[in-house]
């Protein structure tokens, strides 16, 4: 399954929409030698225009809401969203705060989202989320 599944390398653009850095360091940990997803060709890229997957962390603060929307629009199709961490899913510990516009699905309605719950999720969980996103993209390509 794995060699076939990774014939197409996913490029991920990471957006911090006001997260606490906990998820962000776990994303980097997933890329570095212990977990090493770079061996599958999964890597972070510097621009949304190069990305297949946008990894959002954080509960989306008011300042970041329009930037999140713009990044989604700038990413070419087919694309999926990977929401890493509980706060992007529901607001997490920050729910009810006055400076939040999130969660992500409220900002970008109708987008294809994959959720990785946890505060923060372990690198293994993030890798699983990326694989789910790949399976979806592979299905889109076949059609």
């Amino acid at each position, binding site marked *: 399954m794995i060699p076939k599944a990774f014939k197409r390398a996913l490029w991920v653009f990471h957006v911090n929409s006001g997260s606490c850095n906990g998820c962000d360091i776990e994303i*980097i940990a997933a890329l570095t*030698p*212990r977990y090493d997803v770079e061996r599958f060709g999964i890597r972070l890229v510097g*621009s949304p225009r190069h990305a297949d997957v946008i990894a959002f962390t954080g509960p989306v603060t008011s300042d*970041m809401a329009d930037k999140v929307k713009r990044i989604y629009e700038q990413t070419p199709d087919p694309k999926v969203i990977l929401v890493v961490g509980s706060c992007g899913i529901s607001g997490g510990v920050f729910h009810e705060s006055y400076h939040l516009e999130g969660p992500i699905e409220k900002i970008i309605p109708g987008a294809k989202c994959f959720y990785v719950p946890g505060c923060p999720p372990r690198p293994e969980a993030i890798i699983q989320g990326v694989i789910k996103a790949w399976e979806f993209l592979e299905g889109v390509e076949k059609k």
Partner: protein
Amino acid sequence: MKYEVPIGPIHPALKEPIMLKFTLEGERIVDVDVIASQNHRGIEWIGMNRNNPVQSIYLSERICGICNFCHPACLVMAVEEAAGIESPERAEYIRVIQGELERIHSHLLWAGVAAHELGFDSLLHYVWMVREKVMDILELINGNRVTKAIIMYGGVRRDIKDEHIPKIKRMLDYYKQAFGKLAKLFLEDKTIKMRTREIGILPYEEAIKLATVGPTVRASGVKKDVRQDMPYFAYPDFEVKAITPDMLTGETIGDTYDRIIVRLLEVKQSIEIIEQALDEMPPGDILAEPKIIKLINQIKKAEGEAVARYEAPRGEDIHYVKLKSGFEYLYAWKVRAPTYINILSWRPMLLDMQIADIPIVAASIDPCLSCTNRVVIVRNNKEEILTADDLHRLSVKKTRRLLR
């Protein structure tokens, strides 16, 4: 001709949103402006309006995911002082060990990021591989890799058991061996020396004037460390000395290289502190009041205010707490994180530097937030967009130019 370069607020890698505006003359930076608030989540408001004090511990853990022990520890210290709660001595030692484990992981994380900013990605991967050892120990004694949920008013929630101690000692031995290699890689490597020596200098007077804290101020030669000046928890037993770069090189310049030295030496210091703490840790209880309902009621009845200071990996963290009798939440809560102060030092550091130096100088204060994605250069009314990759390329290019 002057032109403005806005950087941020979106950027890849391990960085939080913040916006920086640089005014440039050619390659030279003549002015720096910082625009924050993209990461404002209203945490203090939640602590004062929604959460009871015990829930606020876990909320304060999420102020910063990297230094997720320093904020709850500081809050707990303030509330304990205001409500008059004493914690057992064993708990104080466990808190010291947790704090120092966090310092090791945070400084190694920073070292990796700094290497990445210089375009030295193999070093980033090496350092993060070394860092996984301390993450394993954190997982072993806390049950989670990042957020620890260990501290509680009047003690800690989980003990360090006897079977953990040999594993922790093995990790410390590993780091003692790795330290020599890390020091050689970071301090003797020609590339790193060229890109950091005399770059981003923060002079002694300027550091004091801006009230900079943590490794940033110590690298400028100011002997300032809360663990030395106002010891808390079990730190009075350890005689911590503030580390300045002249301990290794005999001189203090206050540049990026000196900040690398200070952080490396602090990793070594943390190893020594943990070793001593493991040997001297007294037996006994770890929690003064195990029943949480009782504890909440005790804090609810308490009246008073307190300020707590904690030496986080990035510098001095301050929490102010006021409790009012009969009030369910914290009556007042103010957090001053170290990066908030240190960010101001970007200005004197970056003035007269080049664009290619921005990433490493900005990273050198170990900001809990940083920059570099979409840079728009407006030159002769023509817009050019620089992505983080472009900035990274500029940085790598400068390294190559210097190597020639």
